[in-house]
C-alpha cells in the first residue's frame, strides 16, 4: 500500500505541472499579456511611485523575459527547494527555502496571505457540506429503497432528478430573493459569514446589559444556512439516487439470498449485509463530486459575497492578477488530487477485495 501511495504522489507532480503550464500559457498568450495590465492597475499611485513599482516588479519577476523563463522562475519560487531570489531579483544559493507564492499585482499583498485568509473559509463550507451530503443521502437512499415497484417509486426518482437539475445559480438567487430580501421574508442574512461587529461578541450565547446576545457561533451558523444548503442539495440528490439503486441491486444479489436462506430477517439483511456493500459505489463516486463542489463554491461565494477561495479566484481572473491565479490553480490542484488519493485509499480500506500491490 505504501508503494501505491508513493507512486500516486509522484504521479501528481507531472499532473500539477501540466495544469499550471496550461494556465500559465493561456495567460501568457493573451493579447496584451500581463505587463499591459499592470499599467492600468494601481491608478491611485503617483506616477513616480508607479514607475518604481513597475521597475521593481519587472526586475523581481522578470516580466520582460521570455515566457518559458518566466514560468521556470515561478516554478523555482514555488518549490520548497530551489534558488533563493534576492530582493533585487538576483539568484541566490540553492537549497531548502520557504515557498514563495509571489505578490498580488492588484492588491499589493503577498499571495500567501490572501490564500491563508480565504482558504479556511472555503474549507469550512466544504467541511460542513461533505458530511451533510453523505449522511443525508445514505439515509434517504436506504429509506426510499423500500418503495421499489410502487407508484411512489417513479415519483421519488423524478423528484430526485429534478432536484439535481436545479442550477445552483438559480437556487442561490431564489433563496436570497425570497428568504433573505427586504421584499419577501427576511429570515436569513444576505451577505458574508458574520454580522457587523460580530467578532467582538462572545462565542456562545450570553446575556449582556442590553439583553440577550446570540453569540458568535450561532451568528455564524445562521449565516451559513443558505450557502451550505446551496452547496449540498445537488450532491444530495445525486447520491441518494446512487445509494438507492446500489441498495436495490444488492438486495437482489446471491449473497443476500444466502443470508435469507440462513434465516436472517429482512431488516438484518439490509443493515448488516447489504448496507456495507452499497457504500462502495458511493465512495467511488465521491471522487467525482469533488470538482462539482469547487465549482459550487465559486458560485455560492459570489452570490452570498463570502470571501473564500472561489471569490478570490473569480476576482483574480477578472483583474488578470497572474500570481494569484497561478497560486490558486496550484492549491486547488493539490487539494483535488490529494482528495482523489484519499478517496482511493478509503475504498481500499472499505473493500477487502481491493488491494494496491
Amino acid at each position, binding site marked *: 500500500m505504501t*508503494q501505491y501511495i*508513493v*507512486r500516486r504522489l*509522484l504521479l501528481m507532480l507531472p499532473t500539477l505541472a501540466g495544469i499550471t503550464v496550461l494556465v500559465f500559457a493561456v495567460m501568457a498568450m493573451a493579447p496584451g499579456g500581463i505587463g499591459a495590465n499592470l499599467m492600468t492597475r494601481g491608478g491611485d499611485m503617483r506616477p513616480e511611485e508607479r514607475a518604481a513599482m513597475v521597475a521593481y516588479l519587472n526586475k523581481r519577476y522578470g516580466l520582460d523575459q521570455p515566457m518559458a523563463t518566466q514560468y521556470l522562475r515561478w516554478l523555482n519560487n514555488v518549490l520548497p527547494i530551489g534558488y533563493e531570489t534576492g530582493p533585487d531579483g538576483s539568484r541566490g544559493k540553492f537549497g531548502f527555502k520557504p515557498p514563495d507564492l509571489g505578490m498580488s499585482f492588484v492588491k499589493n499583498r503577498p499571495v500567501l496571505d490572501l490564500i491563508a485568509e480565504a482558504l479556511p473559509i472555503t474549507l469550512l463550507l466544504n467541511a460542513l457540506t461533505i458530511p451533510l451530503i453523505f449522511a443525508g443521502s445514505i439515509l434517504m437512499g436506504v429509506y426510499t429503497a423500500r418503495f421499489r*415497484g410502487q407508484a411512489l417509486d417513479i415519483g421519488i426518482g423524478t423528484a430526485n432528478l429534478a432536484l439535481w437539475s436545479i442550477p445552483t445559480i438559480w437556487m442561490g438567487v431564489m433563496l436570497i430573493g425570497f428568504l433573505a430580501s427586504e421584499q419577501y421574508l427576511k429570515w436569513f442574512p444576505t451577505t458574508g459569514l458574520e454580522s457587523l461587529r460580530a467578532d467582538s461578541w462572545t462565542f456562545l450565547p450570553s446575556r449582556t446589559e442590553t439583553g440577550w446576545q446570540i453569540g458568535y457561533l450561532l451568528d455564524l451558523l445562521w449565516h451559513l444556512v443558505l450557502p451550505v444548503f446551496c452547496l449540498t442539495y445537488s450532491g444530495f440528490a445525486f447520491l441518494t439516487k446512487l445509494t438507492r439503486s446500489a441498495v436495490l441491486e444488492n438486495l437482489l*444479489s*446471491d*449473497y443476500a*439470498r*444466502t*443470508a*435469507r*436462506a*440462513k*434465516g*436472517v*430477517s*429482512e431488516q438484518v439483511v439490509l443493515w448488516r*449485509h447489504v448496507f*456495507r*456493500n452499497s457504500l462502495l459505489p458511493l465512495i467511488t463516486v465521491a471522487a467525482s463530486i469533488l470538482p462539482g463542489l469547487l465549482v459550487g463554491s465559486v458560485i455560492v461565494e459570489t452570490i452570498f459575497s463570502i470571501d473564500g477561495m472561489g471569490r478570490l479566484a473569480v476576482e483574480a481572473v477578472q483583474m488578470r492578477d497572474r500570481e494569484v491565479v497561478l497560486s490558486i490553480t496550484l492549491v486547488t490542484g493539490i487539494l483535488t488530487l490529494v482528495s482523489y488519493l484519499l478517496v482511493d485509499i478509503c475504498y481500499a480500506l*472499505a*473493500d*477487502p*477485495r481491493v488491494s494496491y*500491490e
Partner: protein
Amino acid sequence: MSLLSVKNLSTRFTTEHGAVDAVRDVSFEIQPGETFCLVGESGSGKSVTGLSLMRLLSQSTASHPAGQALLNSPRLQSGAVDLLRQDETAIARIRGARISMIFQEPMTALNPVMTIAEQIMEPLMMHLSMDETAARARALELLEQVHMPDPATRLKEYPHRLSGGQRQRVMIAIAMACEPDLMIADEPTTALDVTIQAQILELMAELQARRNTAMLFITHDLSVVAQIADHIAVMQQGRIVESGSRDQVLYRPQHAYTRQLLAALPSRLKRRTAAHHVDSGDTVVNIENLKVYFPVRRGVLQRHVDDVKAVDDVSLAIRRGRVLALVGESGSGKTTLGRALLRLVPSTAGRVSFRDQNLLSLSARAMQPFRSALQIIFQDPQSSLNPRLSIATTLTEPMAVHGIGANQSERLQKAGDLLLRVGLEPEMLRRFPHEFSGGQRQRIGIARALALGPEFIVCDEVTSALDVSVQARILALLDELRSEMNLTYLFITHNIDVVRYFADEVAVMYQGRIVEHGPVVQVCDHPNHPYTRKLLAAVPRFD
C-alpha cells in the same frame, strides 16, 4: 412418517407480461436421511421448487395458489408445519435451522465484505443462541468437518481469497451449522471442476451420514444422480413426469421424456463411426513446442517479474479427418491453446505448421488467406454472435472478404444453404441473434465456421452451455459434417463422456502441459499418468 411431504405444490409468477406457472401440481415425499434427486433440464421448474420450499421467492411476483409442504421435523415442538403457510418470522426460524440450502454459484454466494468466521457464526448465534466464543469454536469445528485445509487461517479471511471449491465447502459448513433435518442443494457442483465435484459429493455424503440429514439434490446431471440418489423425480415444464426409486427410474423408465433424457447421455450414445487408428493419415496441423506466457508485473515501475505459463511447451500433431479431444479442467490452458493456434492470442514461442507454413511467423497480411481454412466455434451462445448484425450479415461478411461468391445475392444463397445444412430455415437470415434459443445460436455459430470452407475447426467447449438433449443433437450434426466435408476438429472439452463418444484421440492437459496423449479407448480405459487417472476416477459413473 415422511420428513417432508409435498402435495400439489404450485408456484405462479405474475409479471407485466402475464402470469407464468413455473411449478404445477408437484407432489413428492422425502424420508429422513435419504437423498432425493429432482432432475430436469433448464426451464423445468426444479430450482423454483427448491426455492418455493424455502420461501425464498420474491413475495411481490411469486405466489402459491395451491398445495402444501408439510415438514415433520422431530426437532419442531409444534408437530408438522406447512412451509407455504407460515409467516415471515416463523419461516425465518426454520430456514438455516431445520432446512438449509446451498446454491450453484459459489463465487457470488458469500458476502464479499464479511469474513468467513462472521458468516459461519451468524446462524449459530441466531438460531442456537451461542455467544461469540462458543460460536467461533464451533465454526472452526465445522471447517474441519468439511475438510478445509488450514481452517484457523481461513476463518479470518475474506471470501475472495478462496477458490470455488473452498467457497462451496464454506457454504456446506454454513448449511450444516445448526444440524438441519433437510438440506436442499441446487446444482451445487455444476460450476465446479469434475475432480472438485467428486470431493464435494463425497463430503456431502459423509456429512449426511453423520446426522442422518436428508438431502433434496436438484440437478440436470443424470450421472451424478446415478451415483448418489435413493429416490428420483423427473421434472419437465413444471410437472413431475416420473418418480420412483433410483433403479426404477434409471433402468426401467416409464415416461418418454425420461427415456429421451437417458438416451441423450453422452455415456449412452453410440459412436457413429469407430475410432480411427491413430497413425494413419497426413498431419493437418503440427504444433511444436508452443509456449504462451502472460507477464506478471509488479512494483512502482511495473517490472516484469514472472510469467503465467498458460501453455507450457506443448507439441501435438493433428491428423486429417480426425477428432482430437483436448481435455482439462479450468486453468489447464486448453482454451488458450485453441486460440493461440488461430493467432487470436499472441504466442511467446514455438511453431504451428499448416500447409508447410509456420502460422506464428506470418505477418497479419500473410495470415489472411489461411484464415478461411482455420475456424473456431465458441462456447457461449450469448456472446458469440454480434447482437447488432442480422444473421445474413454475420454469415456473408466473411465470405465477401475472402472473395467467396461473385455478388451479394450469391452469398445470401450460400448462407441460406448453410442454414439448411445445420438444421435451420433460410428465412432466418434476416433475423437477429436475440430471437434465437441457445441451441439455435450454436447452430448459427457452426454455419459461420463453415461459411469459408475450412479444413480445420477448433471447437471450444461448444456444448458445455447447452442442455443434454440439445448437446446430443449438436454433436451428431458436427459428426455428420465432419465425414461430409472431411473436416478435422480440435475438440476442447472437460466432459470425459463426450470424449468417449465423439473423439478419436485425446490429449490431457494439466497446468499448461500435455500429460498424456493417445487413442481414446486406450487413454480412457487404461490411463497412464496419475492426473489422468484422478480425472477419470472423478467422473460420476452411471453404472
